Each structure stands twice: as structure tokens, then as C-alpha cells.
């Protein structure tokens, strides 16, 4: 494909198609609407289905249903809709149904400021739904990354049978950048594991072949029970501790034992850095701009850009904490991921740079933190 100018939201739509997404159910909301707009146009061409649902609760329910039917599914929303989806994010985590939820953040709380950027939903993406659930949250910082991480989101969802959240900034969603979309066939696309055991032997939540049970589609001859209640290996509700505990542990293990595969981040100029900026999303671009300016003035500044924010890349951040004297955490919120950074490197080393008024953090704000003003 030739070079085009593509918007972040459009890139998410193309990434979904490239990953094999063939079902989208959603309720349009600024600043995510271009994803729905684009997929309503393109999905039918790929033999997929697009449904505009009555609300966000129903949207994610429809995605979970389609996924159980064997079709990769996605929805997209923003803060107010993301709040409504929390119930079913927990359901997808508990029932281990792969799906991708895109949330393009806007300034909150409540309906807030629909067209203004914010990174206020970082903690909600991790803990918005109740209970100790596993979750993966990816965070792009450019149009090409929006495409690439959408593909990754589907791959991780299918591989680990988990909901994956793609958290985006309004600026990235609406920004246009040069992008040469790779041919779909050149991409690594992971499909969920099926099974060839006779249907009567199939255990939908068993751990005989590993922590991620195979998942045959509904309608393919494998009949099984799905519930949000704690369940036994056959999927039926249970109150037995010797069945609840293994499920709690397996759900955590299937993510925590594969962090090397799941945690995506990029280190730049951290070797000699006495100050390292840890940032994500569009704020990482302010940080990189500030780093380049500071390096021109012989400040030894490094940058750690996080593409996976949950699970939190604790080891990488702890390593930074051991080599750097100071860690700067700029966020378009009042300090959310900074809490995790402080836990990993020690509160005394962390300088927070925050704003939550719908404007971006400028390189100048980060430079001021670097210079200790």
C-alpha cells in the first residue's frame, strides 16, 4: 500500500481487520466514533458484521457472544461508555472470552469534555471492574502504533483468552500521520486454540494442556456451560474451595507467567541517564521532545516509553530505579501510573508532572521538571 495520511482511529479499524476481527458492536461516542464509522463501512467488505447497539452494556455483551461463536470481536468507546462496560469486562475476564475493548479517553469525570484529551482512565482500565481479575492494557503513542498494537491486542486476547483493552489518547485518535500500511498477510496473526478431543471429553475450563484452555466455538458440536459465577472445569457453578482456588490461581498464572510476551516497552538513552522520564501515549512524545532538547544542553536524560501499562512492567521500572537518580512521570491526569512507579522505585525518586484540564503536557513542562524548577 502507498503512503497515506491516516488518523489514529482509522488505524485502529484497519488493525482490527488485519488481525481478523469480523464483528463490531458499539455505541458511537466522541472521540472514538471514527472507529465505528470506519468499520461500519469496511467490515461488510471483509464478510464481517457491524451492529450499532442500544448502549455500551449491550455492545460488549454482543462482542462476548460473537466471540464465543468463534468470531474475533471488538468494541470502541470513551469514558462514559467505558464505565458502562466494566460489568462485562469482568464477565469476559471470568469466562475467559477473548475480546478487544478500545477506549479513547476524554476529559472526565462523567461526560466531562468530549473533545479534550485526558489520560484519566489508567486506573479504571486496571481496576474498573470488581474482583481480582487479570487484564491486559496496551497504549499506543502514534498512528502506526495504533495499528500495530490493535493487532497485538487481538493476538494477546486470543492467545491468553482474556479481554484486552487498547487505551488511547484523543490526540492520537484524531491525529493524522504518514502511514504505509503493511500487507495483512505479512503480519503475525494468532488464532485461538481449538481442540480435537471428542466433545464428551472436552473440559472447557480444564488445565490439562496448560493454563489457557482450548476454546472450540459454540455451534461446532462442543456444548458447555458459561457463567460469571465461580465454576468447575466443566463450567458449572461451584462453591468448593478446591475448585475456586485453582481457578483464581490459573487466571492470574496465565498472564503472570508470560510477562515477557505481554510487556511491551522501549528504552532510549537510559544507559548513561541520571534522570529517566517514564511516559506512555502522547505524553511520551512530549517527553521525547523534552529529552532531545535536554540532551542538546548536556543533561543526561533517558526515556522509558510504556506500550503495555497493565500488567505494570515492574521489572523494567525497578531496573531504571536502580540506575537512575531521579524518575519523572508526566501524565495527563492527577497522578495514576505514578503510583505504580513510586511503588517500584521508591517515592523519593519520583517527580510527577500532571495536568488534567484537557490540554497536553508540553515539552516545556517536562523540561522544567528536569531542571528542577
Amino acid at each position: 500500500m502507498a503512503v497515506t495520511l491516516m488518523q489514529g482511529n482509522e488505524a485502529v479499524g484497519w488493525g482490527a481487520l488485519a488481525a481478523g476481527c469480523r464483528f463490531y458492536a458499539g455505541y458511537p461516542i466522541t472521540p472514538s466514533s471514527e472507529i465505528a464509522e470506519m468499520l461500519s463501512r469496511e467490515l461488510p467488505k471483509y464478510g464481517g458484521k457491524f451492529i450499532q447497539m442500544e448502549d455500551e452494556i449491550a455492545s460488549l455483551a454482543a462482542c462476548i457472544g460473537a466471540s464465543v461463536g468463534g468470531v474475533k470481536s471488538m468494541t470502541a468507546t470513551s469514558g462514559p461508555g467505558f464505565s458502562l462496560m466494566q460489568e462485562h469486562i469482568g464477565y469476559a475476564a471470568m469466562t475467559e472470552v477473548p475480546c478487544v475493548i478500545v477506549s479513547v479517553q476524554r476529559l472526565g469525570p462523567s461526560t466531562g469534555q468530549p473533545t479534550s484529551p485526558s489520560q484519566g482512565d489508567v486506573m479504571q482500565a486496571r481496576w474498573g471492574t470488581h474482583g481480582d481479575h487479570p487484564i491486559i492494557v496496551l497504549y499506543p503513542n502514534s498512528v502506526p502504533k495504533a495499528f500495530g498494537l490493535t493487532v497485538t491486542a487481538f493476538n494477546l486476547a486470543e492467545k491468553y483468552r482474556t479481554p484486552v483493552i487498547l487505551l488511547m489518547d484523543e490526540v492520537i485518535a484524531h491525529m493524522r500521520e504518514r502511514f504505509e500500511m503493511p500487507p495483512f498477510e505479512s503480519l503475525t496473526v494468532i488464532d485461538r486454540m481449538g481442540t480435537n478431543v471428542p466433545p464428551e471429553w472436552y473440559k472447557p475450563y480444564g488445565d490439562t494442556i496448560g493454563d489457557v484452555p482450548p476454546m472450540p466455538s459454540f455451534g461446532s458440536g462442543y456444548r458447555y456451560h458459561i457463567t460469571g459465577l465461580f465454576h468447575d472445569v466443566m463450567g458449572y457453578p461451584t462453591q468448593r474451595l478446591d475448585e475456586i482456588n485453582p481457578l483464581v490461581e490459573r487466571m492470574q498464572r496465565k498472564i503472570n507467567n508470560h510477562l515477557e510476551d505481554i510487556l511491551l516497552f522501549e528504552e532510549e538513552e537510559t544507559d548513561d541517564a541520571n534522570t529517566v522520564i517514564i511516559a506512555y501515549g502522547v505524553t511520551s512524545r512530549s517527553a521525547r521532545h523534552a529529552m532531545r532538547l535536554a540532551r542538546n544542553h548536556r543533561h543526561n536524560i533517558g526515556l522509558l516509553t510504556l506500550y503495555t501499562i497493565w500488567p505494570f512492567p515492574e521489572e523494567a521500572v525497578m531496573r531504571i530505579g536502580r540506575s537512575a537518580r531521579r524518575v519523572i512521570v508526566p501524565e495527563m491526569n492527577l497522578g495514576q501510573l505514578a503510583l505504580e512507579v513510586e511503588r517500584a522505585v521508591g517515592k523519593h525518586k519520583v517527580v510527577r508532572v500532571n495536568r488534567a484540564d484537557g490540554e497536553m503536557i508540553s515539552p516545556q513542562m517536562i523540561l522544567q521538571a528536569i531542571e528542577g524548577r
Partner: protein
Amino acid sequence: MSGKNAFNRIEVRLAGEGGQGMILAGVILAEAAAIYDGKNIVQTQTYGPEARGGSSKAEVIISDGEIDYPEVINADFLVAMSQEACDKYASNLKKDGLLIVDSEKVRRVPLTNAIKLPITRMAVEATGKSITANVVSLGILVGLTNLVSREAIQKAIIARAPKGTEEVNQKALDRGLTAVEGLLSVKDKA
């Protein structure tokens, strides 16, 4: 270009009211630079929740190198199509930056060396349609600055023009370009 800073960035801001097509103008300028001139660009936009009215702006960063921070820090070029846009953004211009205003919509101009042209009236005279003012403004901007080549802006406009409106858009572009033909000294400065 003297407008380039240490990061090789040229920063353009196109601002007006919602409905004037300034975001589309930003997209067209970005496409001209990226697709037809092969430059690196980032284009962003800010707008209110209204479909019409309210304030609206597009920003285009053009560079030969990497673009990290995606928004304008200090604009090299500002096109202001409303008084509010001019009031809000003129002070952010670089010292040697260029301000272009629609003289019938912006009565108070804070800079003495601004380019003042009745852009919307020029659009109506050239095409009969005030909505082509955004294309006229692109003609003025490109005519004065060589931000992108004339071929590139022309191709980008025609590629974006709805079917059947190619001629109208071409007229609007030409009107903008010819309006500033005599102002070579400004061009040299840019």
C-alpha cells in the same frame, strides 16, 4: 527557511469557527506535504462539541526529520478566519512568524505586518460559494510561503474535492495564489 527551528519543524495553525472548513484545510495541507511532497507531517485538530459555530483549529507540523511533540509550540504561520481565533493565537506566533487574516472577519489585528485580505469575499467572488474560503486561504498561504509546492497543494485539493466540485475548488485555489503574486518580499522572508 528561516522559520525552521532547531528541530527542523515548521508549525502551521489554521483557525476559525466551526463550519469554515479550517480542519479540512489542515488535512489538505498535510496531505500535500506528506503524500505529494514526501515530507514528514503530523496533523492535529481541536474543536468544540458543536457541529457549527464554536472555535475550531487545525495544526500541521512539517519536518524533514522526526516529529515528537505533535502540536504547535510557537507557530511559524497562522491563518485566522475569525476575531476569536486571531485574539487567541496571534500572541503565540514566532517573532518572525506570518499572520494571515480574513480582513472582513478580523477587525482588530495585533500585528502591523499581517497579511489582511477579504478571504471569504474573495471566495464568494471567485466561486459563488463562501465555503471555498478555506481553499482560498490555502492558496494565499502556499503562494506566500512555499510551505508545499503548488503542484502538491493542487493535487491534494483535487483529491479531496467532492466529485463535480473540482473546477470550483481549482478556481478558489487560483484566486488565493494570484492574490499574493505581487507580495514576493514576504515569500523571500518565509
